C-alpha cells in the first residue's frame, strides 16, 4: 500500500507502508547509525518521533529480544529506504515488520532517505505526518501538523513503579528512569551494583531515604525544559551530596538544576560516530548519541562546573564536571547499545567516585 510522509513545510515523500498502518503525527529526525536498529527502535528517547535511517538497507538481521533496550519500541514511525525482506542472524527472534506491527509503530519504506536527510539537515528537524492509502490532502495535513503538540514523553516512557536489579550486589545505586536504556542498569549491575530503578516522578526525599551510594540520572526523550518538576527534585539530590552521574537527558536536567540553559539543535545528534574529546586528557572517543537538545556552554557558570567533554565536530558541550559535590554528567551514551563501547569507562569512574576516589 502507498504511504506518504508530509513535512510541516509542505514537502511530501511517497513510499510504501509497512509495520502498522495508521495516520500519525510526529517529529521527524534522522539517525546515521549503519548497525543497531533494534536497540535504537527500543530506545525510549525516540518516543513520539519518526526516525529516518540514513543507511538504506534496514532489517537485515531481524530483531533479537536480548538486544532490546526497553520492552517495546517507543518511536511513532520508522522511515527507511528499503525494508530488507530476509533477516539473517542466528539470534534473531522476530522480523522488523512484525515487530513494528506488534507494537503499533508505523513504517514507511521506498523513501529517498538521503534526499529527506539533506532536507532535514538544511531546514532543521520538522514535524510531519504519515498516512497510507490515497494521496492525502496537503492543506488538511499541514493543518493537523501545525496543531500537533508533543505528548509528555517522559511520563509515558518511564517505568511507573520502583524495582530492583542485581539484588544483593555491593554498591547501591538509585537510577532515575526518565526513559532509561536498559544497558545503563546492566552496565551498573555488571560492576557489582544493586540498582534500584525509580520512576521519573519519584521524590528526592524518598530516594535519599533509601540511602543509595550513588545516583544515576538516565537518558530520556524530549525537551529538558518540559521536565521542570524533575529539575526541582534533582536540586535536592545534588544538595544531598550523594555522588551523581547523569547521561543525556539526565545531563541536561542537572544543568538546568544548576541554573544553566539548554537549547535545541537544528537537527540534533543521532548516530554512532560522534567524536567526543575528553578535555582532561585530550583523548577523543567515538560515541553513541541521540539528542535534540544541548547545554548552552555560554550559560555554564565556571564557579559551578567546567566543560569536561566537547563534540569534536561542532564544539558543543558533551560533558560537565561540577565543582560542588561528586557530580559529573555526559551528553553522549557511555552505555552504547547501539554504538561504540569506547566510553564505558565512565561507569568505572562513577564507581571510583563513589568509593571516594577523584573521578
Amino acid at each position, binding site marked *: 500500500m502507498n504511504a506518504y510522509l508530509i513535512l510541516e513545510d509542505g514537502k511530501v515523500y511517497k513510499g510504501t507502508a509497512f509495520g502498522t498502518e495508521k495516520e500519525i503525527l510526529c517529529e521527524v529526525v*534522522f539517525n*546515521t*547509525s*549503519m*548497525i*543497531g536498529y*533494534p*536497540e535504537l527502535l527500543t530506545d525510549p528517547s525516540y518516543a513520539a518521533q519518526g526516525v529516518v535511517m*540514513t*543507511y*538504506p*538497507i534496514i532489517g*537485515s*538481521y531481524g530483531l*533479537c529480544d536480548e*538486544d532490546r533496550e526497553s520492552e517495546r519500541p517507543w518511536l511513532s514511525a520508522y522511515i527507511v*529506504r*528499503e525494508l*530488507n*525482506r*530476509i533477516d*539473517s*542472524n*542466528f*539470534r534473531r527472534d522476530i522480523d522488523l515488520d512484525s515487530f513494528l506491527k506488534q507494537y503499533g509503530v508505523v513504517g514507511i519504506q521506498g523513501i*529517498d*532517505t*538521503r*534526499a529527506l*536527510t*539533506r532536507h532535514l*539537515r*538544511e531546514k532543521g528537524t520538522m514535524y510531519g505526518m504519515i498516512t497510507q492509502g490515497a494521496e492525502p490532502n496537503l492543506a488538511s495535513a499541514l493543518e493537523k501538523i501545525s496543531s500537533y503538540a508533543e505528548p509528555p514523553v517522559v511520563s509515558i516512557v518511564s517505568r511507573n513503579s520502583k524495582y530492583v536489579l542485581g539484588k544483593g550486589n555491593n554498591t547501591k545505586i538509585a537510577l532515575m528512569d526518565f526513559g532509561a536504556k536498559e544497558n545503563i542498569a546492566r552496565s551498573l549491575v555488571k560492576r557489582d551494583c544493586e540498582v534500584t530503578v525509580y520512576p521519573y516522578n519519584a521524590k528526592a526525599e524518598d530516594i535519599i531515604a533509601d540511602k543509595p551510594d550513588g545516583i544515576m540520572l538516565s537518558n530520556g526523550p524530549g525537551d529538558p525544559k518540559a521536565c521542570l518538576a524533575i529539575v526541582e527534585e534533582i536540586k535536592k539530590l545534588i544538595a544531598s551530596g550523594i555522588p551523581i552521574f547523569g547521561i543525556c537527558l539526565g545531563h541536561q536536567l542537572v544543568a538546568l538544576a544548576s541554573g544553566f540553559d539548554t537549547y535545541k539543535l537544528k537537527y540534533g545528534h543521532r*548516530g*554512532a*560516530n*560522534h*567524536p567526543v*574529546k575528553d578535555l582532561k586528557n*585530550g*583523548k*577523543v*572517543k*567515538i560515541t553513541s548519541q541521540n539528542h535534540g537538545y544541548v547545554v548552552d556552554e555560554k550559560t555554564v557558570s565556571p564557579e559551578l562546573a567546567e566543560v569536561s567533554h566537547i563534540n*569534536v*565536530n561542532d564544539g558543543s558541550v558533551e560533558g560537565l564536571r561540577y565543582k560542588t559535590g561528586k557530580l559529573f554528567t555526559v551528553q553522549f551514551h557511555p552505555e*552504547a*547499545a*547501539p*554504538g*561504540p*563501547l*569506547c566510553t564505558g569507562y565512565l561507569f568505572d569512574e562513577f564507581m571510583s567516585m563513589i568509593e571516594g576516589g577523584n573521578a
Partner: protein
Amino acid sequence: MPRDLSIKKVIVLGSGPIIIGQAAEFDYAGTQACRALHEEGVEVVLINSNPATIMTDKMIADRVYIEPLTTDTVKKVILQENPDSILPTLGGQNALNLAVELEESGFLDEHNVRMIGTTAETIRMAEDRQDFKDALERIGLPCATSTVVNSVRAAVEFAESIGYPVVVRPAFTLGGTGGGIAYDQTELQEICSHGLHVSRVGEALIERYIGGWKEIEYEVMRDANGCCISVCNMENLDPVGVHTGDSIVVAPTQTLADKEHQMLRSAAFAIIDELEITGGCNVQFALHPTSFEYAVIEVNPRVSRSSALASKATGYPIAKVAAKIALGYNLDEILNAITRKTYACFEPSIDYCVVKFPRWPFDKFVYATRKLGTQMKATGEVMGIGINFESALMKSIRSLEQNMTSMRIPEIMAYSDEQIAEFLKRVDDRRIFVIAEALRRGYSIDKINEITQIDIWFIDKIKSIVETEQLILNNFNTEALRRAKLLGFTDGDIAKLVGKGEEEIRSLRIENGIIPGFKMVDTCAAEFAAETPYYYSCYESENEVDPASDKKKVLVIGSGPIRIGQGIEFDYCSVHCVWALRDAGYETIIVNNNPETVSTDFDISDKLYFEPLTPEDVRNIVELEKPYGAVVQFGGQTAIKLCKALHEMGVPILGTSAENMDKAEDRELFDQILNQCAIPRAEGQTVYTCDEAIKAANEIGYPVLVRPSYVLGGQGMHIAFSDAEIDEYIGIINRIQQDHPILVDKYIMGQEVEVDAICDGTDILIPGIMEHIERAGVHSGDSISVYPAQTVNKAIQKKIVAHTRNLCLALDIKGMINIQFIVKDDEVYIIEANPRSSRTVPYISKITGIPIVDLATRCLFGEKITDLGYEYGLQPEKETIAIKMPVFSFEKLYGAEISLGPEMKSTGEVLGIAYSFEEALIKAFIGSGVRLPNTKKIAITVKDSDKSEVLNIAERFSKLGYTIYSTKGTADLLESKGVPAISVLKIEEGSPNLIDLILGAQLDLIINTPTKGFAHNRDGFLIRRNAVECSVPCLTSLDTATALISSLEKAEATTLSVIDIARI
C-alpha cells in the same frame, strides 16, 4: 600532538612491481601520502622500482629513485640524501620488511634516521607468528592457532589442545597437495602421515579449521594519543577459506547485529592499542555464523588493498591521514578533507552499499585452475556503489569487462542439473553465477547455504535479482521496469529478456520518468554539507549534481580494473591527462570503477563518477554533464571501446577521431594506409572460420601468428606451426564470441622495436626508441625493453621515424600513438599500431624527462609541439640507460603455462636505470627478484632446435663456476663441446630427476624452452610449474637467458649506483 617539526626529509618506500596480491592500491596510497607530506612542507625522497606509478613522478616526490627495493639501495639512498626519517607503511609488506631489516642491522640508528608511521617492534609483533599470538593472549583475544609439526604424534597433541576439526597443510608440496581437513584423531593420523610423507621436508602446518565462518574486516586508525577510530567494516560474501582478495566484499557489514559488530570493533581497537599502531591498520576476523565465537585471522599494520577499498567506499582518505599521523598529528587535529567542517577523528557513516568484485586472469590463463582458496589469484578489482546490494553487485559485474552485464551467463545457464549440482560445490570464480542459476532451477536459499555456507542474506539478494529477471520475462510493465532499474539491470539486459531493442527500452524508461540521479559520497550520510565531487548513480528521486560550470568540461574515461595487459600505467596516463587539462583551464570529469587507483581519488579531477564503463552508464553522465568533449586515448582499451558509443551520443572525441582509430584496428583499412605510406608489414589475411585460417596459413607459409582483432595484450594470440595447432587456437579464440575477424599473419623472426609518438597534426615527436631483448614472438609487454635502443643504427632509426611520421599523418593522429616494428635484414616492418597511450609511456616520460601525456593532451586541443617548447622528430638520447623488466605472478596461478609467447602474461614491471647497459640490466634483474648466485647450480633443458644456441649460454655459466644439470641429450652435447654437465633422468625415467632437484631447493635457475604447441602434459610443463612453485627462476626464452648471463658476468665488477631521476 601538533606536527613534529623535526621531520623535514622523509624516505617513502614504494611496493615495487604489480603482482597478484599487490596491485595499484599502493600507488594510490603512496601518492596520496606523498601529497600530504608535501602539504606539510616535508621533502619526500621516494624509492620504488615500479616505473608505471604516479608516486615516482617528480611532481609527487622531490627525489625519485626508481631502483630495486633492496636494503642495499635504501642504504645508498640514505647515504646520498641524509634524510631524518623513513616511512615504510605505504609500500605493502615489502616495505615493512625492508625497514625492519634496516632497523635491526642498526643502520637507521647509525645514520640518525627515524622510522615514522610505525615502529620495528610493532611490525615484528604483527608479523611474527609467535609474537602475535602472545600479544593476542595478553589482551585475551582468540587467534586462529596453528603450529608446525614434524610428526603425527605432535599433530595429534596439538589438535587435542585446540580441538577438532583441524587443517593439515604439508610444507613444500605443490598446490597444497597432501593436505586436508581432519575431523577426529583417526582422520588426522591418516592425513598427517600422508602429508608428512609427501612433504619434502617432512613438515606440516596444523591449523584450527575455521572454514565457513564469516569473514569480517575492520579498517581502523589510531594516533599517538591512543585515539582509535574504525573507518569501515566489511563483510566477505565468500566465507573464510577464500582469500579476501578473491572474495566478493560488501561494505558495510550486513549480517552483524550491533553486539557482534561492537565485539569485533572493540577487539580491533584492543589489538591496535596493544601493537601501539600509529596510522592505519587492517584487522581480519573469522566469526562463527551461529555464535559469538571468533578468531583473529590477520593484522596488517599498514595501508593495504582493503584500506584502499575502505577509502573509496567511504570517502575517508586513510593514506593521507596515516601520513599526517606519522608527522605527529592527532586525529582531531586533521581536518576532514571532504566536509571541511568535521575532523579526521570520526567514523564515516555511509548511506549506500558498496560491492567489490575481483578481476581474475582466467581469460588469459585458460589452463590455470579456477579454484579459489587461500592463495589470491585476482589481478585487480572493481567496485560498484548503489543504494541497494543488488545494484552495487550488478554494477561491479559489468565493470569487470568480461562480457557479462548481469547474473545471466549463457554458458552456465546451459549446464545440466547435474552440472549445477556439481558446480555449486566448487569454490571458483563463477560460483555466484552458478548460485543464480541454481535459484532459477528452484534450489532453496537454505539448500544453497548448506552447500556453499554463504550467508542466506547474500543468497536472498541474488534471488531478488533472479526474481526480477522472471518479472521482466513474465510480466513486463512499467513497474517491472522501474524495479529492474532500481536493482541495477541495464537497458540492454532488459531488452534481451523482453526481446526488444535497447533503444526501445530506453525510450520507454524515459517516457515513464525512470531516469537515474547521482548522489554524493560524503563520509557522513548527509549529516553535514559536503563539497566532495564524488558521485554514483542510482534510480532515486533526487539528483545532487549541479552540472552548471563556467568552464568547458572534458570527460576522461578511465581504464577500469587492473588486468594483465592493462595495468597501472593507464591510470598514470589518465591522471596526467586530467592534470594537463586542469592546467589548461578545463573542468575535468573522470569516470572509472577501480577502487585501487589514484584516478578515483576524489581530489584528482573536478568531478569523479564512480561508475561502470559501459555505454549506458557513461551516457547517463554525458546527458547530465553535456561535456565539450571526451578523451579516450589514455584509458587503455577500455576507453577505446567506448569511442564509438561516445561518438553516437554526440560527444566529440578529442584527438584522433573514432573513424581514424578504427582504421588502425581494421585490418583492411590499415593495410590500405600502409600501402599508401609504403610501410612494409608481414603478409597476412583476415579470416572468420577455422578452415579459412588453415587455408590462409598454408598460403602464407608456417609459422603464422593467429589472433583476434580488437584485443588487449595479445589476448588469444598464438604462433602456430601446423594445421592442428590452428585448429586448437581458433577453438580457444572462439570461446568468446567474436564480433571481429581473426587475423593470420606471417611470423617474422627479427629484432622488435617500439616507439611512442605524439602527433600534433603537423608533425611528430618521438621521445625515444625502445628495443626488446627477446626476439619477436614474445609479447612486447613480456619482453625486456631497453631505452635507448642499443642495436638500431642511424639508418634504421631514420626509417622508424619516417614510418611513424607517415603513419601518424595518414591516420590523422592527434595525441598519442604506440607502434611496434620488427627489424630484419635492414628492413623495418610494422607489427601493429595503437592510436592511444601505451604501457611504456610512464617509463619513457620519466627517463627522458619529457612530459608525454601533458604534451599529447595539449595537442588534442590543437596546440603545436613546437609551441610547447619541444622540437619535432626523434629526441636526443639520454646518457642513462633504462631497462624495463617484466614481472610475473605465475606462482599464484596453479596450472598456468609460464612459457612466454605472443600473449602477454606479466602482471607488472620494474626498471633498472644506470649509465651502462650491464649495470642497468643487473638492476633490472635484481628489481624483478632474480638474485643470483646462491647454489650456483642451474638446469638447462631446451628443445632440439635451440640446442646449438644454448651452448654459448651454458659455456658462459660454466665459466662463472655454475654447475649445469641437463637431461642426457643436452648433457652429452654440452660435454662433447667441452662444457661440463651432469646428466639427470627425465621424469618418466624415475628419480632422481630434474623435479627432485627443484623440490630439493638445489637449483638457482632453470633454462627451459618449450617444445611447440600447448603440449600441456609434457615434462617441460611439469618442470616449469615446479620451478615456479618452488621460486626457482625459470627462463623460457634464450634471449632472456643471454641477457641474464651478460649481467652476471659483470655483476662482481660493477658497483651499483643509485640515480635520482628528478635530477637527470
